[in-house]
């Protein structure tokens, strides 16, 4: 079992004829993801990477029956692309784009209110249910099907953790990058709820970082609602305050978002926090 996506998930790719979109659509197809179409305005009617291209998301969804859209569209147009996917009635949008203006995301979240749709990202490596479905830019081969759920605000650090687990023989049910931006779709809390209910997940790894309060909220949710074990790592203990550490959302500002506060909140809720990033795999093994 897994959460959100599996072997039956049908995916379209917005921006499929662009550099990034084309490369990763191909990688996704090779992994076994059911990519059923793509969208590039003005290129409708072409066949690309063996799948049909449409001018609009609505036509793509109606023609293919896709329920998920993966967005590889430049930042200036990505907010609009998310709204187009939402309007077309998909149940999940995965936005890989980095660099979307914050106020565009404010508008996107407003537009999504009351609609039955989930957003992953933006600025995310995507989501993968190993062996079933990969929607994103992560390397498929480092993953292994299994029973640990992973959620993260980072890309390569997630690969690092997955790699440590896989090399120990510990597989993953689903790995989700929630995104490194200040305003994102699904949060740690949303995912904890899904992992807690998922029969195919025995425990969860949270890979957090400085900035915002997502980890504090996850800690509170865990304390009130969860029985499955959770292990966490927070990146950025050595990050200076007031500086944006690469990700738009990774900044300690106004006294909010320091790694030590997050670690304190997680530990006091009963979550095992790993201090050494080289020991995340071992810690998970010890807990399972």
């Amino acid at each position: 079992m897994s959460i959100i996506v599996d072997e039956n998930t049908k995916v379209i790719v917005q921006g499929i004829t662009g550099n990034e979109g084309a490369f990763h659509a191909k990688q996704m197809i090779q992994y076994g993801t059911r990519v059923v179409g793509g969208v590039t305005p003005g290129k409708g009617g072409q066949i690309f990477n063996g799948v049909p291209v449409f001018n609009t998301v609505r036509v793509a969804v109606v023609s293919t029956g896709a329920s998920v859209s993966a967005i590889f569209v430049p930042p200036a147009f990505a907010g609009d692309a998310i709204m187009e996917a939402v309007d077309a009635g998909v149940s999940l949008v995965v936005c890989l784009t980095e660099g979307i203006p914050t106020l565009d995301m404010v508008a996107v979240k407003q537009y999504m209110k009351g609609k039955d749709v989930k957003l992953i990202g933006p600025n995310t490596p995507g989501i993968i249910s190993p062996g079933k479905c990969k929607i994103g830019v992560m390397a498929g081969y480092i993953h292994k099907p299994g029973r640990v759920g992973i959620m993260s605000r980072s890309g390569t650090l997630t690969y690092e953790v997955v790699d440590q687990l896989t090399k120990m023989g510990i597989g993953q049910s689903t790995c989700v990058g929630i995104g490194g931006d200040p305003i994102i779709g699904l949060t740690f809390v949303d995912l904890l709820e899904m992992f807690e209910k998922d029969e195919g997940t025995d425990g969860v790894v949270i890979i957090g970082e400085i900035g915002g309060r997502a980890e504090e909220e996850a800690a509170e949710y865990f304390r009130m609602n969860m029985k499955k074990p959770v292990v966490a790592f927070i990146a950025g203990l050595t990050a200076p305050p007031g500086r944006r550490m690469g990700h738009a959302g990774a900044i300690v500002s106004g006294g909010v978002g320091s790694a030590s506060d997050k670690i304190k909140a997680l530990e006091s809720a009963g979550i095992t926090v790993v201090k050494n990033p080289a020991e995340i795999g071992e810690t998970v093994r010890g807990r399972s």
Partner: protein
Amino acid sequence: MKIHEYQAKGLFRTYNIPVPQGAVAKTTEEAFRIAEEIGKAPFVLKAQVHAGGRGKAGGIRIINRLGDVKNTAAGLLGMTLVTPQTGEEGKPVQALLVEETLPVEKEIYLGIVIDRQRACPVVIASAEGGMEIEKIAAADPEKVLREEVDPAVGLRPFQAGRIFYGLGLDQSLSRRMISVILNLFRLFVEKDCSLAEINPLVVTKSGELVALDAKINLDDNAFYRHQDMESLRDINQENHLEVEASKYNLNYIKLKGNVGCMVNGAGLAMATMDLIKLVGAEPANFLDVGGGATSEMVKQGLKILLYDKDVKMVFINIFGGILRCDTLAEGVVKAVDELIIDLPIVIRLEGTNVEEGRKILAGSGLSFTVATGLKDAAEKVAATLEQLQNVKGVM
């Protein structure tokens, strides 16, 4: 991106938010001329740096006689101002804001930021202006007023009104105060700000409402639709290595330690810094060459690292995933060869064709310490440090 107070006040003028009479000076003569134009002493000279805490650091001077303006300006211009927010290296003062002084009756805090959880702008105000809003909030949260903005309709006048009444100001100020709040919100949205703050917004003894200070941070991601805003960047306020790195789209932040690190991806870069600290050393920097690091990025990143003379060893940590490690390893070898690096380098590569990549590193004739996995890398960094300590006594 941060901008200067005088630039923020320029935006305030455009948006009909009252500011003190004054202008920016880059020379002592200009400072004198502006003061002369203001006419009535005392004047205030404010050092323009990208940091708060200027007053206590001596960056804000009140001058009682026109004749003293040049002298004081000469003392400020060219100095390096060190405040609690600049770090010990300080920021250069290359411009002064010369303004009239106003008799202050009351100081108010007014600011707009994005609420990440609620995904909307929020207006924050307090009748206890003049100090940092975090300190007000920590001391007495009830003194902080908040109005969340519905993005569909923007900030409504009734919300601005609610802030006005919450602040307990004299009724005669209502129309002006509401207009300042609404105008600041319009500025926030139209210029894609991540912070717009007036602290303090003052009521003068003569009953005027004036923005005594101004702080605006802009959303870098929105520059493509604000060409005029990018010209407000002052690279002299930034670390020169960070400026150099930004030319190559590298995310670099200079820190105090001496272990240079180069990593792909922000999260892994932070985790790598933390790891360096755990083995008993201090990271010299944060450097993210991008999730999909290329050989060229690695080369540019190495160059930046080597400009930093504090760096005594380098730790390269690339988790490529889809990236081919053999290509990347060739790039690293070439870069190290070209740049003639004689510092010890610990390198950890992971990704497609990793074995071939490690072979290329090992067979390059260069003295790399090749690590497999993060744990091994941490041990090798620690061992290298120990060696340096023993041999050169540099760490």
